[in-house]
């Protein structure tokens, strides 16, 4: 029994792969697609098949009872089926869909697939169903519109730079007799950063030798410039409390250091061991963001890829991108496409 199920699954998988292969050739990835002859499929829906059976049944009934009115009914539904075929197709192909770029996000967060439907307005209204990653939304269209936005929350994904799976766009206009659909693939890719994991900071100062890094780290955090004195906050470390002021009876005050200001250093993947590379990447993801927030210049050393020390949002994004794609096959210059 098990073997049968597994073989059925295997068959289904090969069929799916075949289908996707065929689709890749027939409907290449595109961010904006006008529905037309080359990317639209049309077939009777289950209701459509029921109606076809109905037409045959009415024909037989009408013939047997020699009843012209029943025959007329049969012809009427034939006409409706025939016209509906064209109406469905024309309705569908008057639309255009535009996929927007994905906002990069972290693992265990849902990413939204945003798209926009626009129409040439021969038929007003109607309803589309958009399915991506087995999640569907209905997009009812208005009488007068230029663009109807739609958004589907995709399931959580692992870190990486993913190709978006094919998105099914379908409609059952006008009487639900036909299903008009298309499988589209957005060119945009989905960038998923490693999620964050808090851990102590390990920063190598530039020009420092590797063997001294621990000492360096300690020194680094302690030799900060004193900027001034401010009121104590519960989260402040005890060793920052200005005991002189306490002794003078002026209450708890904290020495305010310009933390890490004007410093730069390297973050190294090798510092976090190689037992669980995902874990290490998450730690780095945290630290990269943390350092960037503190506006410290830092470089990222992932072994085979190095990013020179810098600061600012573009630098952060570059680092996060490298963390997201660490260990995955090298990508072409699409990286910039994703942000464009």
């Amino acid at each position, binding site marked *: 029994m098990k073997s049968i199920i597994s073989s059925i699954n295997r068959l289904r998988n090969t069929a799916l792969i075949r289908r996707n292969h065929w689709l890749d050739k027939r409907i290449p990835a595109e961010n904006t697609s006008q529905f037309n002859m080359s990317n639209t499929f049309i077939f009777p829906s289950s209701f459509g098949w029921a109606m076809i059976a109905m037409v045959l049944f009415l024909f037989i009934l009408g013939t047997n009872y020699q009843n012209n009115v029943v025959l007329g*009914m049969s012809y009427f*539904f034939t006409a409706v089926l025939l016209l509906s075929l064209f109406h469905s197709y024309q309705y569908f192909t008057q639309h255009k869909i535009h996929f927007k770029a994905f906002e990069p996000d972290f693992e265990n967060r849902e990413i939204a697939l945003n798209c926009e439907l626009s129409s040439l307005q021969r038929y007003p209204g109607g309803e589309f169903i958009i399915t991506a990653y087995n999640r569907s939304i209905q997009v009812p269209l208005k009488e007068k519109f230029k663009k109807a936005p739609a958004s589907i929350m995709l399931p959580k994904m692992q870190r990486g730079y993913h190709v978006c799976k094919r998105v099914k766009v379908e409609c059952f206009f006008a009487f639900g007799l036909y299903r008009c659909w298309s499988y589209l693939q957005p060119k945009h890719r989905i960038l998923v950063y490693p999620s964050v994991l808090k851990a102590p900071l390990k920063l190598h100062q530039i020009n420092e030798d590797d063997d001294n890094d621990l000492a360096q780290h300690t020194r680094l955090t302690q030799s900060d410039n004193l900027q001034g004195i401010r009121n104590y906050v519960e989260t402040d470390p005890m060793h920052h409390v200005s005991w002189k002021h306490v002794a003078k009876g002026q209450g708890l005050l904290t020495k305010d250091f310009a933390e890490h200001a004007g410093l730069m250093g390297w973050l190294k993947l090798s510092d976090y061991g190689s037992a669980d590379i995902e874990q290490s990447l998450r730690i780095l993801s945290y630290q990269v963001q943390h350092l960037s927030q503190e506006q410290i210049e830092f470089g990222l050393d992932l072994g085979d890829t190095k990013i020179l020390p810098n600061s600012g949002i573009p630098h952060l994004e570059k680092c996060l991108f490298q963390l997201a794609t660490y260990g995955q096959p090298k990508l072409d210059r699409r990286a910039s496409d994703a942000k464009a």
Partner: protein
Amino acid sequence: MRKLNAFQMRLPSLLVSLSFAFAVLPLADTIMAWVWVLFACAQGVVFAKVFKRVPELNSLTLNLLAIFCMLLLIFFAGQFGLLSTMINLLVVAGCLKLITMRTFADFHLVVIVLIFLVACGFIYHQALLYALYYSGILFATLFGTYLLNKGKISRKQSIRQASKMLAQAIPITILLFVMVPRLPPLWDAAEAKSSSTGLSESITPGDIANLAQSGDLAFRAEFSGAIPEAQDRYWRSIVLDYFDGKTWSMGDEMSNTDNTPPIAVSGPATRYLIIAEPNETRWLYALDVPIVQETVTDKPIFRNQSYQLFTQEVNKKQSLYIVDSYLSAPLNHFMTEYERQRYLQLPSESNPQTRAFVESSVSDEMSEQARLKALIAPFFEQDFAYTLRPPLMQDNPVDQFLFEYQRGFCSHYASALTYMLRLANVPARMVAGYQGGELQNDNILTVRQYDAHAWVEYWIEGSGWTRIDPTAIIAPNRTLAGLLSSIDEQDSELIDRPFTLGGFRDVPVFKQIRDFMVLIDHQWNQSVLRFDQDSQRDLITNLFGAFNAKNMTTFMFLILAAIALFIGAIFLPYRRWLGREVFNPAQSLIRVLEKRGFEKHRKETLQQFIKCIQPDLNEKQYAFLHAFMKRYYAKAYEGKAIHKKEFNKLLKAVKANF
């Protein structure tokens, strides 16, 4: 499985459940009592769902209900026929689905059931009003299915859209209706239980349990003088002379076209024109004694020795003819021994009680008149009744009728009396035709199918055939004032009156309306309900001159081409093609931009459009577009003469820059 949300469902489910209710109503007779209960519940549930939030029924309860219903159906199936069990099954299925309507599939199932029900309804009722009624139901249903996919548009807009699409289907329907060849029944369909009047060439009184009376027009008569009294208006059509104990039928020699014997007539003549509707037989109508003066249509009309008028072929079309009738002339002609034997023919060994009764009440020395008097005495003395719902009488029908039930309609009485007369050695025959008719005005009379009647003629030596109408003894009103006055209320349900407007019958306006409606109904009957293989053949013959395989194929191809043309006219973008020939700078610009992925909304002006896409353009592109637009507006609205070349140059620049 697409789920329906409550908002989407409201109007469509209301529409479909109402349509369902209206579709069930005409079938009320066939629906079992408990199904009505379920039906009411389903309607209640739908209404509650539409107007209030109601928790869904749990599926176990529903499944149990469904099983219970199926058991009930099976239990009762024996008592009801196959067709009515099927109708009940459909109604039950529809009701259960109405209760649980949650997905699109549920909704569509109800729609399919509804269409089935409408088709079943059409088997029972085909009159124009019913057709309109059911069309309304079908429209509401299809509109409901349209609403499911309508998106966010107003109701008005969606009605307009749906009606447009459905209206487009009508011409195709008509073309298909005319084109598709009519096939004979694929297998024997179950006959509907009642028979309708109208004339046929054989009559079996005992077999018909319900005589449904049709209000269809049989013929009109226009008199040049005064119209004869109601009791004299016996329109002869068919003479039946052979009896096998159950069925009366006519001998072959009746329709011999060789000899229309000249007859001697005397007395004043009544002249009238008859416009007879097609009747699927060869027999026509006239008052006694008829002499055809003129036939307006080109087919010849013959008369045989029983004074019947007939044509060579079945009357597929209206027949017009002028007749002189000599109402007071006796129906006598010489009777040969052979004919005498024919009119005395009797089935052997049947209806023994009647035989015994005739033997005991008639003696040899009595005259024909005296014998008749003795034989019809029971009709006066006993409790006979006239009804359109007589019981079935299948073994020895005359015995059963005379001695057991004593209930029947005209053919029961005529059949019994003819049979008794023959037993009493008086030549006799049964005549079928119409009696009476309704006065339209001073000289026009309309005769409908429900005026069909049967009476008796017997031979008196010396004075010839004499008419005796036994029904007139039981229900004198039948002959004096027509059928409607002689039946009870229950029976009157059976009569399919043509648009009677109750108490308004005598108001002239209503009479005119009624006549108009009758005319439309008649057209519906002729052009739709009776359209068959022969009509198709006639149509092809009219169009091409002859009916053969080649013309038939041409005809079908022409119709298919017409359908294709019609669809093309709706869907092909011919406006764009035609528009291409006139130079319109704005159109060319828009087309260029469209190719580059900037789509103009239909209701945008060029200026709005360019402003809308401005953020996506660089300065140079925008500058060119702007210049183009300025010039276009200058040409179009300020009337400046700007040459085509200039636009083309600019267009080129736009193309180069995008």
